[in-house]
């Protein structure tokens, strides 16, 4: 990218909390926020555990008139957006709303709303369907609701790219600021997959842990006894702006999006390629765009899918690129505590990385018991480690090998 873009506000709705302070304190403690799904009868699902948000209503600022029109994934996005705007001290009276864009990543859409209304349609006929169904369920609904709520009219987009959705949304947002299409961008993602139908689809897709009995220990990337990832729900939103503007506004700058690399495996609609060329290409492109030498990278936030293939390929690509230097870099998958938020995951990975930079602490990969001999990496098992982080890479891989790597720096 021609210039780096400052991140000046963060908002989080996660299984580990809805305030950045709580979120950080909980992640630092290395606790699992995975729980059994109890909000509907999930007893017959092969995977029936998830990282869930329990306090959304407590922290919500929305009217009941609005809430009945939107799905919970938009509710999460609106709450996270509100936190990010407040955190960035954006004066909504003064900002030019024609130049504020909203960029969101999402994989599944709003199924709680859709399932309920489809059931009503078959039970009661067309009159039984809420008219808000038309605008509540689809992946771009949350972006629409946020732009309407704040009156933002800048260039905006929703990206659907499985687990790489919010990584691409963040990149796209930064690009529009560099191109001077926007002055500010509200960017991130949201996902609410803990509904009967969405959970069914996620189970059919495969890759989920079935360790239902020992659910706190179920999500264990790079561990020999892993059996897949655990779903999570929530939203992460950040405010992006030009570095000069942020300095002029005297904003607190958490860090900068410096570069991005992406590629697609292009071999199968779901599976990754068995060779790591495309993933390595994305990592190398990101390093090139950031103008970083390999040894300058302090931290890599891992994709950590916790599938045999996903972990082995990720470890192999990193070893291939960094070689012996990989031992000097801290690596971890904090998502092992939260569950994987699919389309929203990278936005929370970014926020966790920024807070790690701020606190000079590498968050752990929890539930690590025994090293997989095919994954030759140190993933910061179970306990955080003190370390100054100036430069970090964040890896995201979507179905079929959509590879996105974000480069983030502190100073």
């Amino acid at each position: 990218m021609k210039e780096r873009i400052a991140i000046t506000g963060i908002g989080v709705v996660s299984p580990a909390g809805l305030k950045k302070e709580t979120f950080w304190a909980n992640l630092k403690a290395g606790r699992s926020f995975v729980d059994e799904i109890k909000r509907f009868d999930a007893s017959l699902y092969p995977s029936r555990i998830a990282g869930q948000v329990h306090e959304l209503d407590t922290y919500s600022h929305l009217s009941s008139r609005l809430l009945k029109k939107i799905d919970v994934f938009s509710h999460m996005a609106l709450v996270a957006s509100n936190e990010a705007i407040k955190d960035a001290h954006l004066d909504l009276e003064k900002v030019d709303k024609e130049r504020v864009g909203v960029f969101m990543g999402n994989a599944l859409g709003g199924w709680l709303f859709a399932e309920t209304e489809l059931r009503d349609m078959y039970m009661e006929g067309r009159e039984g369907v809420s008219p808000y169904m038309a605008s509540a369920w689809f992946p771009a609904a949350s972006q629409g609701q946020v732009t309407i709520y704040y009156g933002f009219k800048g260039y905006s987009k929703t990206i659907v790219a499985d687990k790489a959705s919010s990584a691409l949304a963040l990149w796209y947002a930064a690009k529009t600021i560099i191109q001077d299409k926007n002055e500010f961008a509200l960017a991130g993602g949201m996902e609410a997959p803990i509904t009967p139908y969405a959970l069914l689809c996620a189970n059919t897709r495969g890759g989920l842990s079935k360790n239902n009995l020992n659910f706190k220990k179920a999500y264990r990337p790079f561990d020999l006894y892993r059996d897949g990832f655990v779903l999570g729900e929530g939203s992460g939103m950040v405010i992006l702006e030009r570095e000069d503007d942020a300095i002029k506004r005297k904003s607190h700058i958490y860090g900068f999006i410096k570069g991005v690399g992406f590629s697609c495996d292009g071999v199968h609609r779901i599976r990754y390629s068995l060779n790591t060329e495309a993933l390595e290409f994305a990592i190398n492109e990101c390093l090139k765009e950031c103008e970083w030498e390999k040894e300058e990278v302090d931290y890599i936030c891992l994709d950590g899918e916790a599938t045999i293939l996903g972990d082995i390929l990720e470890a192999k690509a990193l070893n291939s690129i960094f070689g012996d230097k990989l031992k000097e870099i801290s690596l971890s998958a904090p998502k092992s505590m939260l569950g994987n938020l699919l389309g929203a995951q990278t936005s929370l990975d970014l926020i966790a990385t920024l807070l790690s930079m701020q606190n000079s602490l590498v968050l752990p990969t929890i539930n690590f018991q025994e090293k997989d001999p095919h994954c030759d990496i140190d993933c910061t098992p179970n306990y955080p480690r003190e370390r100054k982080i100036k430069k970090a890479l964040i890896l995201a891989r979507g179905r079929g090998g959509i590879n996105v790597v974000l480069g983030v720096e502190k100073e």
Partner: protein
Amino acid sequence: MGIKEDVLGIICKTLDVKEEEVAPDKTLYDSLGVDSTEMVELRVAINKSLEINLEGNEITNRHSPNQIIEIVAQKK
């Protein structure tokens, strides 16, 4: 209850607003920012509750509550 009270009650319940927020002679768009989707919900609620058959655009967000009461009264 008369039609007026019925319609006002449905407006308040459907739009989730208090009776004092409803301006009888202002359009629903101007007074409460009601959008076209909310109008669909309101029309369906009135039809169901008062057992009448208002079609697509017979009531819109450019009508005031008093105008809607009049239209409903003609249907009864």
